[in-house]
C-alpha cells in the first residue's frame, strides 16, 4: 500500500538525526545525565610479557578524590575462559584483572576511581607496579616455528594446486604484507556503568547491544534480563566495538564495589592497546595461468598473529576461494601467538586485506601475460561460487568493471609503466575488483502507530545501532514506504536492549537486516489492521483511515524478518570495481591520488546519500591502508610507537581524490525481500590494490608492503626500468 510515497526508500534524504548531531543533542555514551557518577582511569602495563611482582597503590589511594584502586589483588573473581586460546567472538567474556600475568604492553593492570576525571587520571600515574619481565614474542618473522592452524576451516582446497601450476604457461609467486592497523573511530570507547542491586545499566559505545548484554551477564554470571545496555548513538566502530571490551567490565566492577555509577573513557593512546586492531598479515600468493589468460591455479596462504591467550583469525584467503573461476585452489591461514592484544575484525575483515594480495597478484599476472587487467578478470569471471558450489544470487562484477572503465577513461591507460609522465610526476592507472559477502540476519522490531490530529505517525523500535552509517534514516524511510506515511512522521528509536533484538551492526548486514525487520513489523501492523476490518490485502487505504476504521488511536505490532530457505541456496555478495589515477613524484616518493571511480552493485540503494557516505568513508579508509596508516612496533620492548593521531596517519582531506561513486541498479530478491545488500565494507575492499596497481603502472615498481610511503618508494629507487 503506497498511498504517499513522498519520502520512502530510494530518496537521497538527509539524515533524520543529523540535526541532533550537529547541535550536540545526540547523546553518545558518556553524555547521558547520570547522577552521582564518578570517574575511572585505567592503569596500563609497561612491559609486554611477564608478571607483576608488586603493586603499590598507597600513594594513589591517598591522592585527592580517590575512591578506590582496583588491581588483580583485590578485584572480584570473574568467569574465566573455559578453554585455552578460545576464539574471539562478539559474545566472548572479557575477564580482566584476574591474574598477575602480563600478556602485552598496555594491558590493564589496575583501575583508579575518583570523584573527578582529572583526579582519576592523576592518581593512575601514582600506581607503582614492579614486574618480572620476560622477553616478549613480538616478531612475526622470528616466531615462524610457532605458527599453527587455528581451525579446520582455516584451510580449503579444490582440485590440485601443483597440477594447476604445472599446467600453467605463466606462473607467479609473491608475498604481500599489510601492517597492524587501528580502527580509531572518532568516538572513544567509553561507558557509564551502573551496578544497582545486581542489576546493570550500561551506557556504552557498542555496535551490538544484545551481545553486550550477553557478555556482561556471562562475565559476571548474572541473568541477562538484569542487564540493560544503551548505545543510542555510536561515533563509529569499524569493528572495534563489536566486542564488549574489558573497559566495560572494569567500570562495572568498580560500580559494583562503590555502589555508584562509574564513567570510564578509554584514551586515544589506550585505544592502540586495548580495543582491538587489525594484525599484520603476510600473504603468499601463487597464480598459474594459460597464455590466453585462463587461470589454472591460485593459492593464498596467510600468516598472521593472535594474542597469547585468545584466538582471532582474519579470513584473508576467503576472497581467493570465490572471486574467480579457477579449478585448482588452495587456501591456508596460520597464526602465531605474539605478545600483543587479540586482534579483531576491522572493516571488511578478510576482504580488505585479502583483496590487496589477490588483486595485486592478478595485476602482476596480467602484466606478465601482457593482457589488460580488466580483460584478464572478465576472462575468469564466474557466476558460480566454486567454494560453496552454489550460484551467486546476483553478480554484476563484469558490469562494474566495464562501466567503471568507461567512466574512468580506462582506454587512455598505457599498459607499459612509466610512459605517462608530467614533469616530475609519474602517472599510473590502476584497477581492482571488489567483493564482500552481503549477509542478512534475523531481526525483530516493533512499530507503534498512533493518530495525532487526524494524522498517522509511527515509531520504530529495535536494539539496532547506528554507528554513523545512516541506520536511523534508512529505517525511517523503510517505515515510510511500508506504512505509506512521510518519513518526517516516523520516529526511530535504536540502541536499547529493551527493544526487540537485532544482530547489531557489523559485517555489512545492518541495512538489510534492520530494514527488513522494520518492514516485517510494518507489514504485520497493516495486515492486522486490515484483517480486523475485513479489508482485502491488496486494497489501498491510508494508514490514518485504517486506524479510524478500527476506532483506534494507537496500535502496536512486532515483526521478525529472517533469511529464507532460498537464501541458503545461494552465495549472496555485493560486488564492485575501483579505478584510481595515482601520481608519484619520482624524486620525493610522495604519491597523490588524483581521482577515483568506484562502481558498486549492492542491491537496492535505500538512500543514495547515506550510501555514498559509506562508500566515500570506505574509500578513504582504503587510501589510508594503501598509503598512510600503520602501527609501528618497537622492536625491543613490544610497545607501539605510533601512539597518537600525530603519528598514526589516517588520511586527511588532501590525501583524498575526486571520487565518482556509481551504484548499478540491481534487483536481488534472493538476498532478501527488499533486495538490500551491504555496502559498509564494500568501499574499502580493493582500494589498496587499485592504488598499488596504479603505482606500478606509474613507476614500474611493485609495492607489496603497505602502506606505500615515501620512504619505501625512495628505497625502491624510482629510476627508469620496470621490475619483472
Amino acid at each position: 500500500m503506497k498511498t504517499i510515497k513522498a519520502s520512502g526508500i530510494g530518496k537521497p534524504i538527509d539524515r533524520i538525526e543529523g540535526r541532533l548531531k550537529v547541535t550536540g543533542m545526540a547523546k553518545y555514551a558518556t553524555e547521558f545525565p547520570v547522577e552521582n557518577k564518578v570517574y575511572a582511569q585505567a592503569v596500563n602495563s609497561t612491559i609486554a610479557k611477564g608478571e607483576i611482582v608488586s603493586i603499590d597503590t598507597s600513594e594513589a589511594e591517598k591522592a585527592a578524590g580517590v575512591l578506590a584502586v582496583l588491581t588483580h589483588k583485590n578485584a572480584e573473581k570473574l568467569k574465566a575462559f573455559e578453554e585455552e586460546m578460545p576464539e574471539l567472538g562478539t559474545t566472548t567474556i572479557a575477564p580482566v584483572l584476574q591474574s598477575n600475568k602480563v600478556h602485552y604492553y598496555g594491558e590493564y593492570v589496575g583501575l583508579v576511581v575518583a570523584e573527578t576525571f582529572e583526579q582519576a587520571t592523576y592518581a593512575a600515574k601514582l600506581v607503582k607496579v614492579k614486574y618480572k619481565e620476560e622477553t616478549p614474542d613480538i616478531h612475526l618473522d622470528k616466531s615462524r616455528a610457532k605458527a599453527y592452524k587455528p581451525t579446520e576451516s582455516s584451510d580449503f582446497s579444490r582440485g590440485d594446486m601443483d597440477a594447476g601450476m604445472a599446467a600453467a604457461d605463466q606462473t607467479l609467486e609473491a608475498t604481500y604484507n599489510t601492517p597492524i592497523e587501528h580502527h580509531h573511530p572518532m568516538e572513544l570507547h567509553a561507558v557509564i556503568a551502573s551496578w544497582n542491586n545486581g542489576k546493570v545499566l550500561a551506557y556504552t559505545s557498542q555496535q551490538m547491544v544484545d551481545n553486550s548484554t550477553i557478555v556482561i551477564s556471562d562475565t559476571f554470571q548474572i541473568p541477562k534480563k538484569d542487564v540493560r545496555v544503551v548505545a543510542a548513538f555510536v561515533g563509529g566502530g569499524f569493528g572495534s566495538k563489536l566486542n564488549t571490551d574489558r573497559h566495560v567490565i572494569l567500570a562495572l566492577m568498580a560500580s559494583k564495589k562503590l555502589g555508584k555509577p562509574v564513567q570510564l573513557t578509554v584514551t586515544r593512546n589506550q585505544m592502540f592497546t586495548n580495543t582491538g586492531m587489525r594484525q599484520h598479515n603476510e600473504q603468499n600468493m601463487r597464480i598459474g595461468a594459460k597464455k590466453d589468460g585462463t587461470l589454472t591455479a591460485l593459492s593464498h596462504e596467510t600468516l598472521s598473529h593472535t594474542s597469547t591467550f585468545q584466538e582471532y583469525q582474519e579470513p584473508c584467503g576467503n576472497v581467493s576461494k570465490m572471486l574467480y573461476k579457477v579449478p585448482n585452489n588452495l587456501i591456508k591461514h596460520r597464526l602465531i601467538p605474539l605478545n600483543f592484544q587479540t586482534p579483531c575484525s576491522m572493516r571488511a575483515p578478510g576482504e580488505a586485506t585479502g583483496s590487496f594480495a589477490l588483486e595485486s597478484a592478478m595485476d602482476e599476472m596480467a602484466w606478465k601475460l601482457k593482457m589488460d587487467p580488466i580483460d584478464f578478470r572478465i576472462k575468469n569471471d564466474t557466476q558460480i561460487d566454486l567454494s560453496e558450489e552454489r550460484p551467486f544470487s546476483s553478480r554484476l562484477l563484469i558490469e562494474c568493471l566495464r562501466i567503471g572503465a568507461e567512466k574512468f577513461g580506462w582506454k587512455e591507460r598505457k599498459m607499459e609503466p612509466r610512459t605517462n609522465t608530467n614533469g616530475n610526476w609519474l602517472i599510473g592507472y590502476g584497477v581492482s575488483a571488489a567483493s564482500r559477502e552481503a549477509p542478512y540476519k534475523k531481526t525483530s522490531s516493533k512499530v507503534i502507530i498512533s493518530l495525532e490530529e487526524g494524522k498517522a505517525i509511527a515509531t520504530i523500535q529495535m536494539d539496532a545501532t547506528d554507528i554513523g552509517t545512516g541506520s536511523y534514516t534508512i529505517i525511517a524511510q523503510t517505515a515510510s514506504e511500508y506504512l505509506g506515511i512521510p518519513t518526517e512522521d516516523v520516529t526511530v528509536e535504536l540502541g536499547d536492549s529493551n527493544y526487540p533484538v537485532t544482530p547489531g551492526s557489523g559485517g555489512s548486514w545492518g541495512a538489510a537486516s534492520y530494514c527488513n525487520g522494520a518492514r516485517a513489523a510494518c507489514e504485520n501492523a497493516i495486515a492486522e489492521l486490515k484483517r480486523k476490518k475485513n479489508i482485502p490485502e491488496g486494497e489501498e487505504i491510508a494508514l490514518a483511515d485504517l486506524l479510524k476504521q478500527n476506532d483506534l488511536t494507537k496500535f502496536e505490532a512486532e515483526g521478525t524478518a529472517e533469511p529464507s530457505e532460498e537464501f541458503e541456496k545461494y552465495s549472496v555478495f555485493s560486488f564492485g570495481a575501483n579505478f584510481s589515477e595515482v601520481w608519484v613524484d619520482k624524486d620525493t616518493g610522495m604519491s597523490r591520488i588524483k581521482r577515483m571511480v568506484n562502481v558498486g552493485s549492492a542491491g537496492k540503494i535505500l538512500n543514495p546519500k547515506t550510501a555514498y557516505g559509506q562508500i566515500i568513508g570506505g574509500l578513504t579508509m582504503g587510501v589510508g591502508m594503501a598509503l598512510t596508516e600503520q602501527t609501528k612496533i618497537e622492536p625491543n620492548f613490544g610497545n607501539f610507537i605510533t601512539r597518537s593521531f600525530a603519528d598514526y596517519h589516517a588520511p586527511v582531506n588532501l590525501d583524498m581524490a575526486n571520487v565518482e561513486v556509481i551504484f548499478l541498479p540491481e534487483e536481488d530478491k534472493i538476498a532478501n525481500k527488499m533486495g538490500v545488500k551491504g555496502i559498509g565494507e564494500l568501499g574499502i575492499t580493493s582500494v589498496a590494490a587499485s592504488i598499488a596497481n596504479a603505482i606500478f603502472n606509474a613507476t614500474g615498481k611493485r609495492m607489496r608492503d603497505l602502506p606505500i610511503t615515501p620512504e619505501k618508494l625512495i628505497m625502491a629507487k624510482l629510476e627508469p626500468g620496470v621490475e619483472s
Partner: protein
Amino acid sequence: MRPFTYTGAKNKEQALQSYSPTSHYLGGGTNLLDLMKEDVERPDQLIEVASLDYKKIFQNDKGGLTIGGMLSNSETANHPEVRKNYPLLSMSMLSAATAQIRNMATNGGNLLQRTRCPYFFEASMPCNKREPGSGCGAIKGMNSLHAIFGYSDSCIAVHPSDMCVGLAALGATVEVQKPDGSTRIIAFDDFHRLPGSQPEKDTNLMPGELITAIHLERPEFSEHYYYLKIRERSSYAFALISVAAGLQLKGGEITKAGLAMGGVAHKPWKFKEVEKFLVGKKPDESIFEAAAELAMKDAKPFEGNTYKVEMGKKAIVRALSQAYARKS
C-alpha cells in the same frame, strides 16, 4: 596531568619574576600541554606569556624585519610583509601542523617545541632526553625518524620544526629577556644545539630566558625560494625530510644561497659549506646535484633511516631547482 599552578603574566617583569626552575612559560600550549598530558613535562607552575605584548611585526633598523615572539604562527606566516619579503618563512610555516594548531602556536613556542621521538613521548621507555642517564631507546630500536647528522651516543633525535628550517636558511637572530631584565641576542645557528652528552638540553637558552622577538636579516630570497616538505601524508604530518632553499641571482649567477634541512639533526641543519659552494655558480641541474652530494656527504644513517640520505639528495636538488625556477 599533575597538579600545577597557573600564572597569567600581565607583563614581562611579572613573567620573569614568577619564573622558577620547575616552571614553564606557556605559549599556545600546543606542545607543552600535550607533553604534560603524556607525563613527560611536569612543571609545577605555568606562566602564561602568549598574551604579552610581543605581537608586532615591524621593520628593524638593520633593514630587516622583527617578528614578535608571542605572535601566532598563522598571523606571522600570513602577514603581508612576511609574505612579500620572506616568502620562504611563510611557506615553511604554512607547511606545519594544521590551521588550528598554527592559530594557537606562538613563534617563541615553535622554536622550543620538543622532538617527536616516540621514546621521548612514552614515559616508560628509556630516553636520555626525558630522563638523563636512562639510555637512548632509539639507537638500537625504531630509528626511522631519526638523525643522520650531528647526533651523539646519547641521543639521535631530530628537531621537528618547519619554521626553524626556514629561519636557518634565511639567517636570523633571537631576542630573549634574561631573568635580570636585560636582553640577549642569539644568532639563530647558536640557538639550538647538538645533543652531545646533554641531550636534555635542546637549546642554548638559559633557565628563565623569555623569547620576545625574532629578527630577520635584510630580505635576500624573496624571489627565489622554495620549502619542500616530504611527509607521510599530505598535511598534518611532521617532515621526514624538509629543505628550505633560497637563492639570490644576478646576471645569471648565484650571488647568495641559503640552504637548510629539517628532519635530519637535533637542530635545523644549515649547509654552510654548500651555501658557499653555490655562490658564483650558474644555476643548473648539475650544480644542484653537486650541491646535494656535497651536502649529504657526511650523512651517517642508522638501520632504519638509510632512506634519508637518498631522499635528502633528491630533496635538495628539487628545492634548489624550484627556487631557481620560481619567480614570485
